[in-house]
């Protein structure tokens, strides 16, 4: 292959799996590239890096990544990742999945892994709906938004994911959009190198489903919307960073603290005697 034909990220991609399944205009390609760029620039030993995902469009990222990858069941990526990390603490484990996977069916696992401060990284692609099944509303869909199962407009209150993460105990919480590629890469790199449970939310366009049903235009127009409506507020209390259907999108690094992890707190009982 000529030098010009080699993509700088080829070593991190299973190129024989291409083309990927993602729609044109979807933010996942960009988000995935940001993850790969951060992996690359982190200086981590790639043999020790693992990607775990659940089910959905974002969940397919694991199988495209040329590191150890596990594509698990719907919602269960976090407990699988927990097992990997605790069994081999040298591993750097990242869960890359969608909002429906991580916060609806997998919501309980998320809050408990955050509470325990399991040293894993969560990258959540939030496109405000279930893309793979055709665009149903989920736990992040803004009020009034139309989806295939909210034809009269969504009447359920959505989660503010950054607030959920922070309140549950995450030591690092950031939110960016698919447009903020450089800041996103920096954030993912920080998370990869940080000890403890980290959470990065990426607001990402789904022009095929969510965008189309809400007249948001194509992927590029959604990106323009992000450009015009994003406000960077580092350090803001995540409870004040909620999202609405057509309001501003507060982005930035909200939480960056340190506390002992699950493994740090393990009892050391090397001298305890036991009689059954």
């Amino acid at each position, binding site marked *: 292959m000529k030098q010009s034909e080699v993509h700088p990220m080829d070593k991190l991609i299973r190129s024989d799996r291409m083309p990927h399944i993602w729609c044109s205009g979807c933010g996942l390609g960009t988000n995935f590239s940001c993850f790969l760029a951060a992996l690359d620039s982190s200086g981590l030993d790639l*043999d020790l890096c693992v990607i775990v995902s659940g089910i959905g469009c974002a969940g397919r990222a694991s199988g495209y990544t040329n590191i150890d*990858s596990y594509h698990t069941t719907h919602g269960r990526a976090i*407990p699988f990742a927990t097992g990997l990390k605790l*069994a081999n603490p040298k591993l750097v484990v990242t869960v890359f999945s969608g909002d429906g996977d991580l916060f609806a069916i997998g919501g309980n696992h998320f809050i*408990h892994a955050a509470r325990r401060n399991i040293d894993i990284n969560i990258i959540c692609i939030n496109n405000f709906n279930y893309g793979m099944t055709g665009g149903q509303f989920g736990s992040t869909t803004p009020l009034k938004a139309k989806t295939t199962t909210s034809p009269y407009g969504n009447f359920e209150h959505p989660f503010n994911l950054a607030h959920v993460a922070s309140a549950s105990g995450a030591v690092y919480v950031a939110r960016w959009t698919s447009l903020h590629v450089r800041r996103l890469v920096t954030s993912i790199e920080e998370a990869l190198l940080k000890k403890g449970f980290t959470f990065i939310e990426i607001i990402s366009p789904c022009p095929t489903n969510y965008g189309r049903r809400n007249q948001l235009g194509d992927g590029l127009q959604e990106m323009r919307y992000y450009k015009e409506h994003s406000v960077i507020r580092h350090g803001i209390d995540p409870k004040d960073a909620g999202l609405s259907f057509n309001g501003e999108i507060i982005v930035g690094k909200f939480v960056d603290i340190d506390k002992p992890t*699950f493994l740090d707190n393990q009892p050391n009982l090397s001298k305890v005697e036991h009689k059954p």
Partner: protein
Amino acid sequence: MKSAVLTGEHFINGDVACAEGALASGCRFFAGYPITPATEIAETMSERMPQVGGIYIQMEDEMASMNAILGASSAGVKSMTATSGPGFSLMMENFGLGLMMEIPCVLVNIQRGGPSTGLPTIVGQQDMMQARWGSHGDYEVIALSPYSPQEMFDFTIKAFNLSEKYRLPVLVMADEVVGHMTEKVIIPDENEIKLVKRKKPKGPAEKYWMYKADADLVPAMASAGEGYKVIATGLTHDERGYPAMNAEAQEKLIKRLCDKILLNKEDIVEVMEYETGDAEVIVLAYGSPARSAMSAVKMARKEKIKAGLFRLITVWPFCEEQVFSLSKKARVIIVPEINNGQIVREVERAIKGKAKVISLPRLARIHTPQDILNVIREVEK
């Protein structure tokens, strides 16, 4: 550091023996959720794991527990979870993932009465068919049925060995009576315990395929962190581990997943026979009812009735050939179970009408030897 193998004689219950069996097998990761009557397994693990450098984690539910042990085993550490009926139902989802991804681990079910919350502290054997068919799709499983605290120790080791050898989650289908019964358990010397380790890849990492099986139909398993760039998915996949959404891939994969068990039945299946040689009436049992059945057979023999006991140690895969061969001598097969009659259906299927099969169902209580003896006498008339 405290020894993982507590060699010696102990007076412990089946749950504790199970936990000790796991530790003696080299299990160093336990994820679970409290549930009666399996709680003592988790309690023992929470005390013992830190002593042997292992991890005990109490998960938020049984779906998470099952997934956590799959993750831990994927990182190369032998792992186990333990539960009872309601938790077993929740574990079925990711039991399927373990079968599909071919991840060795052990799932213990101390059965209680169901359905739903049922009888939290009272015995049952009502999950025997769920063990076989509880997760969606086609597959084969391995399920063992211990009938004493000693076997809770021994069969947990056996379950780990089978799981490592055949690369799948193996079920220990115990029941509350066996789990809570306290008896003498002998833990042998560490070097007397034979352990099987999963097959590891040999060639260069670039040429490794996660699901390319050898002649025994079992693929070598690389762990995360070893540089093999593992690709594993719950989707139907080809030998590389790449998703393959077509009929050919589905048929090839499901056939291998089933055949790796079915074609190795001789190695996997274990039964115990007592006085079956000339027996005309055979009690076919597993788990705690087999204890009563043993007494009943001994009592019948004293009455000169040609009775025998055929005990399933491996319930799944079902030993239909051996059961069929019982019909050469036996006129009647009596099947006592603490359910409405589950395994008796398999017995009827295997016996092909060549002997009379009598179901002896009980709910929420173990059969007494007299219960079984009465039926033996009846059919002997």
